[in-house]
């Protein structure tokens, strides 16, 4: 089949194919870019009214009966995320246009990026938590497709699946958590849940709700111990990594924690869960970042570090912590996206991302280098960049929130010093200095590809120099949303000489030392990592393999293709479930309801039981058929005795037909005691199951006979049979009048069976022999 396609495509000229690809890609690109611009402008137009405290809301019917509405509400926090998602979206879409210009998957990529952006925007704007969950899952699915964009590559497929399983699994936990949250707070609207304050934290299910929701947030935002999927997800193309890592996917969990901090936070559980997970994540991932030589992988690990830092800050419910988290979020979005895009340019231009092979790229790619260096300076937290303000706030926060601050302060300084070391590596080993060992001459990339890094890097610089505007219109409203109270914040570059500044100086000093001893440090970290027990990725691998192993074992065990085996399972399940139910809810039997036994009935029952036993042990077919006939006729007699005349007549007729039919067919089948059913294959197990089924059934029927019956329906028929249907035989009236449709269905079943029998009899089969 693939050969056909190849030959077909060869029939067309290359330029025609190129034109077709470019045409559909241009459409996709235009749609994506226009949507991003429209959203960005729309968000911008709301900035002043939202800053004044009036959120933009929209509400539409969707599934009113389930209480799922299209409720959207854009407040300060949503606005911040919306601006980042759509604004960075514009730059990433432009970038992808240049990056994928001649790639046959270009159109697909642009559509996926657009879907992903829309899902993210929906996620951060939803007011209904069910709606939020739906968008949450949409981002999981679209990011799966984006990470696995290069689907012919095994590594990309594995990473995509890993991202899907980890974040999708967390999503399931989140769904349950959100539903419980809705039940506990009595509302599925985020605005109402937040307005109810800390009511949820006093609910008896609070620990469960918190655990489930944090599972969702931690998996999505790659917090320890779920951190491993994010660095693997950098198998995606550069623009995708830039978008996923800077503004979107991984920030969804951060968004959720920020959003719910005022409702779920402020407790010891919240504080310890977030500060421990965030702290471990931050320190561990900055160590992991230092040992990489692949620039993109290095960046991926620093993303995990940034997420850990933000999570650590969200642990506290102080305003300074929220301010630090929000500011650092913006700082990180700017520099991380710029650096990912710049590394994409380097990769495209030189063919490698290994910093040992690169050097002095400023000579060949001056504009990309400008963007990258400015972004790296912001990452290192040098003044006058926004990164500096962010880092100062982090230190101010750590000094304020911690009761025993030294561990957290040390962690923050260590993590930030490693950031400085990495930033310096970017600046002096790749762009400004260092020796290049690549053979080909790198060229500067298209304008659409350098505009992203440069714009973002300059944004980081300008917002650092003039923090007033962004503070008033974006940061302050966002902090107010997180705190669920109006907050007054002010940012400035210079705070005077205080604790944070001293820590900053220490950080830079340690960072410079790290930069100069990078090879020694990374070797030390490598040695350390080898000694540590398995975490993350290998645990995932192990679990995945075990699951598949157990599943296939189970399937082989259950799905044997043997009828008797299936029936064994069915009857065992029947016996066990009924017996357990009987044990826990014994039937109350009222022995006064017993009626006396008449000799006639006793004889009939005795005959039937004897016939059944004969059937069990019969060795000839004729004997078995006779025994079967006796049982069937006995049933008919019982019907007759207990006043069911019509049923008895039908039973007798059908029983007669049975015996005739069976006898007719049996003549053509081999004699009974053939080799297929030797006694030894019928073990004790079959007998036990059979007897147990009989005992259970006998107890149930006895129990039901000895409890009062609800005869409402029967009385209805008795009263209305003559009055409404003009029939004296109630059973007949039920069948042909009250339940006439049932009877029609029954006729249809019998007719179908008859047709099937005729069809089967006409088929000529060729013997194939047993398998």
């Amino acid at each position, binding site marked *: 089949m693939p050969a056909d396609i190849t030959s077909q495509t060869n029939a067309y000229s290359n330029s025609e194919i190129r034109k077709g690809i470019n045409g559909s890609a241009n459409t996709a690109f235009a749609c994506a870019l226009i949507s991003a611009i429209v959203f960005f402008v729309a968000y911008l137009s709301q900035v002043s009214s939202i800053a004044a405290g009036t959120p933009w809301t929209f509400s539409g019917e969707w599934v009113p009966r389930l209480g799922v509405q299209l409720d959207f509400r854009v407040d300060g926090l949503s606005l911040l995320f919306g601006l980042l998602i759509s604004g960075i979206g514009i730059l990433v879409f432009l970038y992808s246009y240049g990056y994928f210009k001649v790639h046959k998957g270009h159109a697909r990529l642009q559509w996926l990026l657009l879907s992903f952006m829309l899902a993210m925007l929906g996620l951060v704007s939803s007011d209904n938590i069910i709606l939020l969950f739906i968008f949450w899952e949409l981002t999981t699915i679209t990011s799966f497709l984006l990470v696995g964009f290069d689907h012919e590559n095994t590594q990309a497929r594995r990473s995509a699946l890993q991202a899907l399983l980890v974040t999708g699994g967390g999503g399931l936990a989140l769904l349950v958590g959100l539903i419980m949250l809705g039940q506990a707070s009595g509302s599925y609207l985020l605005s109402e849940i937040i307005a109810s304050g800390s009511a949820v934290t006093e609910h008896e299910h609070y620990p469960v709700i918190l655990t489930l929701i944090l599972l969702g947030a931690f998996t999505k935002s790659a917090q320890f111990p779920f951190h491993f999927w994010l660095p693997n997800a950098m198998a995606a193309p550069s623009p995708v990594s830039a978008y996923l890592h800077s503004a979107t996917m991984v920030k969804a969990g951060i968004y959720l924690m920020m959003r719910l901090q005022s409702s779920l936070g402020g407790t010891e559980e919240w504080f310890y869960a977030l500060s421990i997970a965030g702290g471990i994540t931050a320190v561990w991932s900055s160590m992991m970042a230092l040992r990489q030589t692949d620039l993109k992988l290095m960046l991926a690990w620093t993303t995990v570090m940034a997420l850990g830092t933000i999570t650590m800050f969200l642990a506290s419910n102080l305003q300074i912590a929220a301010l630090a988290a929000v500011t650092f979020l913006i700082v990180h979005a700017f520099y991380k996206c710029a650096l990912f895009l710049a590394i994409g340019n380097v990769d495209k231009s030189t063919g490698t991302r290994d910093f040992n092979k690169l050097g002095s790229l400023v000579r060949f790619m001056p504009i990309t280098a400008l963007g990258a260096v400015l972004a790296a300076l912001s990452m290192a937290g040098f003044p006058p960049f926004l990164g500096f303000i962010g880092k100062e706030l982090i230190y101010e926060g750590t000094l304020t929130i911690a009761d025993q601050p030294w561990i957290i302060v040390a962690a923050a300084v260590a993590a930030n010093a490693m950031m400085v070391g990495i930033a310096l590596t970017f600046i002096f080993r790749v762009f400004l200095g260092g020796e290049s060992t690549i053979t080909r001459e790198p060229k500067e990339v298209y304008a659409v590809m350098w505009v992203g890094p440069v714009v973002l890097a300059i944004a980081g610089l300008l917002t650092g120099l003039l923090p007033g505007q962004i503070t008033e219109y974006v940061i302050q409203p966002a902090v107010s949303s997180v705190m669920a109270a109006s907050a007054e914040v002010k940012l400035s570059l210079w705070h005077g000489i205080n604790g944070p500044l001293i820590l900053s100086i220490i950080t830079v000093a340690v960072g410079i030392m790290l930069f100069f001893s990078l090879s020694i440090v990374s070797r030390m970290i490598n040695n350390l990592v080898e000694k540590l027990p398995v975490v993350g990725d290998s645990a995932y691998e192990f679990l995945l393999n075990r699951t598949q192993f157990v599943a296939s074992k189970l399937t082989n065990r259950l799905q*044997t293709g043997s009828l008797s085996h299936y029936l064994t399972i069915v009857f065992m399940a029947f016996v066990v479930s009924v017996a357990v139910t009987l044990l826990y809810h014994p039937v109350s039997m009222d022995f006064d309801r017993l009626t006396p036994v008449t000799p006639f009935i006793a004889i009939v029952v005795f005959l039937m039981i004897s016939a059944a036993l004969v059937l069990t042990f019969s060795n000839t077919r004729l004997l078995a058929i006779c025994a079967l006939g006796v049982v069937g006729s006995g049933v008919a007699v019982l019907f007759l005795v207990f006043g069911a005349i019509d049923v008895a007549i039908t039973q007798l007729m059908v029983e007669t037909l049975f015996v005739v039919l069976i006898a007719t067919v049996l003549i053509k089948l081999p004699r009974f005691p053939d080799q297929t059913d030797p006694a030894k294959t019928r073990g004790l197990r079959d007998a036990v199951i059979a007897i147990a089924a009989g005992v259970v059934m006998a107890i149930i029927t006895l129990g039901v006979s000895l409890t009062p019956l609800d005869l409402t329906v029967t009385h209805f028929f008795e009263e209305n049979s003559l009055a409404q249907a003009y029939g004296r035989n109630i059973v007949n009236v039920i069948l042909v009048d009250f339940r006439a449709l049932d009877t029609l269905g029954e006729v249809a079943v019998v007719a179908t069976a008859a047709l099937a029998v005729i069809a089967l009899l006409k088929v000529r089969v060729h013997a194939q022999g*047993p398998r």
Partner: protein
Amino acid sequence: MEILLSLLVGVLMSVSVWMLLSRNLVKFLFGLVLISNVANLIIFKVGGLTVGAPALITDGGSAEYANSLPQALVLTAIVIGFGLVSFTLVLAHKAYQAIGTLNVDEMTLAEKRQDPADSEKSS
């Protein structure tokens, strides 16, 4: 009376399960016929037993009738059970012609065991 009939139901149920679990298709068929009968008997019995009072409305008499509802259900069930058993019977006959065995453990055409001989044949 109730205890006696429950005993009957229990014995018939055991026998039919025993027959159904058999590896011989003919015995399985006997089990199928028997379990249909047991099911009908159970439905009828749990609806309450009234001796000699058919559900027929007589003029003026407001006597107690036998429970008509289970009777109607059982009547339908008997006929459908007949349809099922006749179809299965013919199917068994044809299956025997095609496969040449009545051992249900060897009738695995629909769900083949994974063994090399099979995959060779199918390719």
